[in-house]
């Protein structure tokens, strides 16, 4: 029953691997709810890793701990070999609710990360325009967020994260507030962007299809308390036509296998 293209990686410790983010023994509780219990994980450089699991498995908490936005109760996170506890320039975050400044134009929103770092206006706007084009929003520079659709707003969020030139992009369910058609388009664009940008992506999602479609590596988390239950590397050729991936046998088998594994946790 094991699929030839589906490589399961032992959850303990992978062999020689260039990992950019290392998570060691992270645990976190909210009151007496244990959100995460001693998580050990490595995120390979230049790959897209998804954190997948049902709600309540602590995947967003884990991502925010990596981002330095939530303080863990125990354990540590290292990025590029250095221990981190606060947000840093090597990580950039894409928010589930977009977190755009409603009073600022697309241009200023995208340039906001650089604005906070005190870069001169001309420079940061040049960088911002480049990434606005990169995410397909050219011509919308002077629009305000409320004039854009959900999908376009999240493209602004993605462009903002890209423009600070971080090594690691942390995406917290970026498509959950985006409608289905836009999500499909956005996922295709993300695959294309990933090959161009040579960055590491850590992606939180609750959609099995989405995880299998875009990830090099999927970390399955089980809920209450959140633990790593399985790591899967779907080997899907993404250079082909995106629409063919959705009908690909390996793709469908992987989705099915993950679903069988997660089923027990769904109430």
């Amino acid at each position, binding site marked *: 029953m094991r699929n030839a293209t589906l490589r399961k990686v032992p959850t303990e410790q992978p062999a020689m691997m260039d990992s950019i983010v290392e998570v060691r023994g992270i645990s976190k509780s909210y009151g007496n709810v244990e959100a995460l219990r001693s998580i050990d994980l490595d995120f390979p450089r230049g790959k897209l890793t998804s954190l997948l699991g049902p709600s309540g498995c602590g995947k967003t908490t884990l991502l925010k701990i990596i981002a330095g*936005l939530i303080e863990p109760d125990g354990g540590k996170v290292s990025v590029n070999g250095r221990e981190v506890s606060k947000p840093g320039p090597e990580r950039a975050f894409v928010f589930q609710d977009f*977190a755009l400044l409603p009073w600022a134009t697309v241009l200023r929103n995208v340039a906001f990360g650089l*604005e*906070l*770092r005190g870069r001169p206006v001309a420079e940061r706007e040049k960088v911002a325009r480049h990434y606005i084009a990169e995410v397909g929003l050219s011509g919308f520079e002077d629009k305000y967020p409320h004039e854009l659709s959900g999908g376009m707003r999240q493209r602004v969020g993605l462009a903002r994260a890209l423009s600070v030139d971080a090594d690691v992009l942390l995406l917290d369910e970026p498509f959950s507030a985006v409608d289905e058609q836009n999500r499909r388009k956005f996922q295709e664009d993300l695959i294309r962007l990933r090959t161009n940008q040579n960055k590491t992506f850590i992606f939180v999602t609750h959609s099995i299809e989405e995880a299998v479609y875009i990830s090099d590596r999927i970390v399955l988390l089980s809920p209450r308390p959140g633990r790593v239950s399985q790591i899967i590397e779907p080997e899907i050729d993404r250079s082909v036509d995106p629409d063919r991936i959705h009908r690909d046998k390996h793709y469908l088998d992987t989705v099915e296998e993950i679903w069988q594994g997660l089923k027990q946790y769904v109430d």
Partner: protein
Amino acid sequence: MASVRTEGEALGLATIGRGEARSWENNPTLLRLVSVILFAGIWQIAGMIPVSFAFPTFFETVTALVSMIADGSLPKAYLSTLQPLLLGVILSAFLGVGIGTLCGLWRPGEWLMIPIFIVLQAAPVAAFIPMVTFIYGIGMTAKTLAVMILALPVIVLNTYKAVRNVNVSLIAMCKSFLGTRWQIVSKIILPDASPVIFAGLRLGVAAGFVGVVLAELLITPTGIGDLITYHRSRANYAEMYATIASIIALSTLTLVALQWVESRVFRPEKRGA
């Protein structure tokens, strides 16, 4: 007189006569003009009936207004009223937004100061005005203080609430992109809170007008308050109404100007929306 008024009351003049003009809806200037003419016409008719012997017609009032500007009595009164009003309103705006922001960001500040302003806002503040006279006499200080005790509480409380309820997701965003504490306040909290802060400022400025007129009616017979009292005692009702109308118009214009500043400077996305 209560110190708290709704925004609708303060700007109430502008809404008269809106229902009649369905077919002209896409011509706002014309609509506003019609509204003003309608208002003046009803006033004129009511004055001609007459509703009361002490109720002048619209044209009598306008004539009185022109003659009071011409003989210099109105400008002179405004010169005296505007000084404490401006001083009080500006001080209240800066102090109020400052104290409100501090209380919103800093717990001890909240515990120390917010109860005082809640009590002040609930209290019939006009009753304090004789007390202010008792301590500060009848000069400029007393008038400025009267403006401030009316304007300050609503500005502080609105600012405090706005800062408290700021969008936490935007703060997390600012932190994740390495914003400093000061940048979080100046680039996220204040702009995000500005609509509610400005609502407080509008109410505060309106309350400041109440304060200065009250002070001039109750303690220091100078300025606009004095002009109203004087013309009432001489039964110059047209002049009295002209004075009252002029201060209402000034208050309304100030509020409109404040709204313009808000949409211009702080929330450009609301312009033309």
